[in-house]
């Protein structure tokens, strides 16, 4: 048990960093910010799920997926489908030609609920599918890529292409998916109105709590032998293979875990923001997520969360005042981070913080003390 908590928290230092993050997200921010701003933080935190999935996959495993948005999106869509069905009860849709169907289906002359919407009538099944659908897709992609030893840039480009295909598919199948508008106008979760202030607070805390849990799960993976093998595979994949490990299985597994964590973020996004659209599935969001992880530090789970919060905060502030400059700034930021700080904010922290914060203050204090006593004498 002791060993497990050690692994999950990542030692004294890791537990401290995790506690600081938890206090920030669960206490300080809710106390300091109004509900609108807190809602924005909640949205950023859903992206942080994807950022930590990239720390596992890219930072530690050396597998750069440029399509994590599709897992975020799939998780979000699964959740949105359930909420949409609940919002489309026959009474509130009685002006439609076929009441009881989601509005966009009615507009597209679809008169019967498509078969793949059926499971989303049940909440437990939906919660299961939020995890299962993205993991299944990741498993299929992983099987196809990793067992054929597709890796590096090729893997990145293929995941990007699949993300693009998925977003085009969603846009194109308007009658089944809500098209480019996405699934909107979501109201209740099993009768619980998610648009009220109390629900928004509740969902915010749930979201932040889940993020902490996902960080702990990731910590467990990274501190186990599996985590060490990930680093080893990033260094010398052949050596791992010729040490008796089935490299493809390890890669498929971590790709599936990363997909699952991203999907939880997506589902929480839908619940908090109240809609899901293809603009969170394609290439642009997927690459943005990589930038979040890179800025925060691709080797650090906690760093990736701060990176996501900071970049998005900057985005919100800058795009409110200089909307057209933001994209350039973001591009510049990414280039700067990759060129000068390959380990991101976490790398800078690791390099300077231990010297300047605690130990340096103590050293300064110790130096001053004899001076003071000397004067007294």
């Amino acid at each position: 048990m002791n060993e497990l908590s050690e692994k999950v928290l990542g030692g004294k230092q890791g537990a401290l960093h995790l506690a600081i993050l938890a206090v920030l997200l669960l206490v300080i921010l809710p106390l300091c910010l109004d509900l609108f701003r807190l809602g924005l933080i909640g949205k950023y935190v859903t992206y942080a799920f994807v950022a930590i999935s990239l720390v596992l996959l890219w930072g530690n495993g050396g597998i750069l997926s440029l399509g994590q948005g599709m897992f975020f999106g799939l998780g979000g869509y699964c959740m949105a489908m359930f909420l949409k069905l609940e919002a489309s009860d026959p009474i509130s849709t009685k002006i439609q030609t076929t009441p009881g169907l989601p509005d966009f289906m009615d507009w597209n002359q679809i008169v019967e609920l498509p078969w793949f919407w059926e499971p989303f009538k049940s909440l437990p099944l939906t919660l299961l599918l939020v995890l299962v659908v993205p993991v299944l897709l990741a498993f299929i992609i992983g099987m196809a890529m990793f067992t054929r030893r597709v890796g590096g840039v090729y893997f990145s480009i293929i995941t990007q292409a699949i993300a693009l295909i998925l977003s085009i598919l969603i846009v194109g199948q308007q009658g089944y998916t809500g098209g480019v508008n996405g699934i909107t106008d979501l109201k209740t979760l099993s009768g619980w109105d998610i648009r009220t202030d109390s629900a928004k607070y509740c969902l915010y805390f749930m979201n932040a709590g889940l993020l902490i849990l996902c960080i702990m799960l990731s910590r467990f993976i990274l501190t186990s032998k599996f985590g060490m093998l990930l680093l080893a595979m990033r260094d010398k994949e052949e050596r791992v293979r010729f040490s008796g490990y089935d490299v493809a299985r390890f890669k498929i597994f971590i790709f599936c875990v990363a997909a699952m964590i991203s999907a939880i973020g997506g589902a929480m996004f839908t619940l908090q923001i109240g809609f899901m659209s293809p603009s969170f599935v394609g290439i642009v969001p997927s690459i943005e997520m990589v930038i979040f992880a890179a800025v925060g530090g691709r080797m650090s789970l906690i760093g990736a969360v701060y990176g996501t919060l900071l970049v998005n905060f900057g985005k919100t502030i800058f795009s409110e005042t200089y909307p057209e400059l933001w994209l350039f700034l973001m591009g510049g930021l990414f280039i700067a981070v990759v060129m000068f700080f390959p380990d991101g904010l976490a790398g800078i922290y690791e390099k300077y913080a231990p010297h300047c914060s605690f130990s340096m203050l103590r050293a300064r204090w110790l130096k001053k003390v004899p001076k003071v006593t000397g004067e007294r004498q």
Partner: protein
Amino acid sequence: MNPTEFILTIEDLTVSFDGFKAVDNLNLYIENNELRVVIGPNGAGKTTLLDLICGKTKATSGSIKFKNTELTRLAEHQIVRTGVGRKFQTPSIYENLTVYQNLEVSYPEGRSVIGSLFFTTTPAVKERVTRIADEIFLTESLHQQAALLSHGQKQWLEIGMLLMQDPELLMLDEPVAGMSAKERDLTADLLNRICKNRSVLVIEHDMEFVKKIAHKVTVLHQGKILAEGSMEKIQSNETVIDVYLGH
């Protein structure tokens, strides 16, 4: 001789790359506890031979039997699990891990995904790591990052990583390349020690080093065996002198 006495039996092995036969109808038999050295000029097919045994390259035809298991049909990691270890020509270690971690990660347990997630370092593992670190002269660098080791130390570390797996057949591709004279002597001692209860197959160019370790020498030339026998026999063989050793 009875074929079951051989740990490795290679028969009629051929591999062709676009018509070029890198290994051509090769027969090679390695006995238990034997240290065999394969020599030959560049392009003779030495490294290809190791690639074929460990599954990195698939054979065009022929058979490779390790303790009655046919290796040509197995995947790389399965071949390793039958008890074949292979060191690459350029030291192939995990630079971002410490020497200790390099050895620990090579321990042959927790090899499945789930197994590795719940693998715990038992005292037995620690004991094995320290013992092997001692054997490969790296006790003092145990907690150093592997990237900081010298070239020779990296070669030893990779041998150590193979020893962690305790293979019955150990294959080493130019283990003393880039080593100083002193390091070569230490490596010769190391190989003479570790071949006590396993078979070792070594590829090497350094004839002084070969003399120190070889039980038997095989000379490869253009994918075929040119000569085979004791070091003295090989050194006095006219054809070998002509194509490889020189006058």
